[in-house]
């Protein structure tokens, strides 16, 4: 008991107060009130309660509810691609090649460039007639592709850009994971005659599980919350083909449907919680099972 009081004496509660106050006022409080405002017709000055109408509207209107599907496709595809591609790049960059410093820097730099800049640049690269990608495609004998104008393709073009930009963080996390693996495992395995592929599959892959879990969670949440890349490249179009939850929230806000926009915000919050928390729990379990 005495040591406890000494402890709380030394580590005063007041140290936490500034952070906690700012966090609660500007983050938590709006989230709590959003539950109420999402059930109102609202123009900031007055709010009229309307029950679940906004939610019904959100799910019945195809242009709105399709954004949920797009968000899920976007998040799972970007996350999956990053997990797989980054793994092989990390393996490549932890081998004995001499140019790894250069390659790592090149892969990493897009992460520091603003999403807006990357989005606008890729917009130009994906230009339907004169963009560089189509020039190359035509040069090797394919017909040009309307990357961002085709309803069925636009979302995947944005996803590809997202992977290009966000790959780096996954790569560096993997590299840290691979480098922390004890080298004696590989020595023992090669003495036993395991091939490089077997070593990769049976030693590296299971032992980078903690890094992999971080990457999955991080990129999935990032994908579910995505807004600026979509907004820079397509603005949700063509039609509603690339509208994700965050862009719908912005659009409804711009149209003045504040209640509906807030309902979208709450749905996004629920969606992320329903995916992220169980997934994290599952991945932790899996990590424990491996070790």
């Amino acid at each position: 008991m005495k040591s406890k009081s000494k402890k709380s004496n030394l580590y005063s509660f007041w140290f936490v107060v500034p952070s906690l106050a700012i966090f609660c006022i500007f983050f938590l409080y709006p989230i709590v009130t959003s539950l109420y405002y999402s059930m109102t017709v609202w123009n900031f000055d007055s709010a009229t309660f309307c029950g679940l109408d906004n939610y019904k509207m959100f799910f019945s209107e195809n242009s709105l509810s399709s954004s949920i599907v797009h968000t899920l496709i976007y998040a799972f595809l970007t996350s999956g691609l990053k997990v797989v591609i980054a793994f092989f790049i990390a393996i490549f960059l932890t081998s004995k090649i001499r140019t790894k410093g250069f390659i790592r820097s090149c892969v990493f730099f897009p992460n520091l460039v603003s999403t807006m800049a990357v989005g606008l640049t890729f917009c130009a690269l994906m230009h339907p007639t004169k963009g560089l990608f189509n020039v190359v495609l035509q040069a090797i004998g394919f017909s040009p592709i309307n990357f961002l104008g085709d309803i069925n393709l636009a979302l995947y073009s944005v996803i590809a850009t997202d992977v290009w930009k966000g790959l780096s963080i996954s790569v560096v996390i993997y590299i840290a994971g691979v480098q922390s693996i004890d080298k004696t495992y590989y020595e023992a395995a090669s003495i036993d005659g395991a091939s490089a592929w077997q070593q990769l599959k049976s030693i590296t892959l299971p032992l980078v599980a903690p890094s992999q879990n971080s990457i999955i969670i991080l990129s999935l949440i990032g994908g579910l919350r995505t807004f600026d890349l979509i907004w820079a490249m397509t603005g949700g179009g063509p039609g509603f083909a690339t509208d994700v939850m965050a862009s719908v929230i912005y659009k409804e806000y711009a149209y003045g449907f504040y209640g509906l926009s807030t309902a979208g915000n709450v749905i996004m919050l629920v969606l992320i919680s329903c995916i992220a928390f169980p997934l994290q729990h599952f991945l932790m379990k899996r990590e424990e099972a491996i070790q």
Partner: protein
Amino acid sequence: MKREKRRLLIADILGVLVTVIIFIIPFYFMFVNSLKSQQEANLLNIAWPSELHFENYSAVFSYANYQLLTAYKNSIILTLFTVIGLIFTGAMAGYVIQRRNDRVMKTISWVIMLGLMIPAAILPTINLLQKLHIYKTMFGMVMVEIALQTPFTIMLFRGYMASIPTELEEAARIDGCNPWQVFIQIINPLLKPIRATVIILTAVTTFNDFTNPLYFLPGADNTTVQLTLYNYKGQFSSSYNMLFADIILITIPMLILFIFFNKRIVDGMVAGSVKG
């Protein structure tokens, strides 16, 4: 042995080649097009400009009554105050949360870490800022940025605190320091490496932030560099040279940061994400 060497050489060459094609060409594309005349830039190819037009850069700067200069000023003020606020509040909170492992702190820590996952409620935040009369002000924007980045910052500081032994603080305590002195004189100097990481990461995030200024800091006088980029998208739709000059101008600060702090940035991102 010789065969292995040759294989490594091939891997080197292939690796560099693929990297250049996938990661360098887009930047090269931005750069050459920012130096072309309007007609040439609108062809959107990667040929070297027939004539170098450095005046594109000054044109972008003076465009719309030096809007980009205002934007730079706003972005720098926003970044500066957000970073300062975060390193103070975050270090203090991370320190006590890590040291006091009781139930209250665990609950507080859990609540704050929620912020890593769940998205902010945007319109209620705007409403709150309006009620507090700080909507469309730099102060309100800074507060929102601090609130959004607090969880990540505390996580980094808390993780680093775990590697600092408690004996120092206890000794200082016995020598008669009060809690505040212990923190300022003993702990604070030891936090230097992680503080550098936090400064760089939060500065990059804030400077590159588009979404939050879009919502919380509207208005021509309040514009930030990322918003000018978005506005120019429409206005420069037929003059790509100006658009790319703008992109290059906004990317240069990040490039400088990257050249100087490459290792620190990478290490910080790894530390931050793995411990989460």
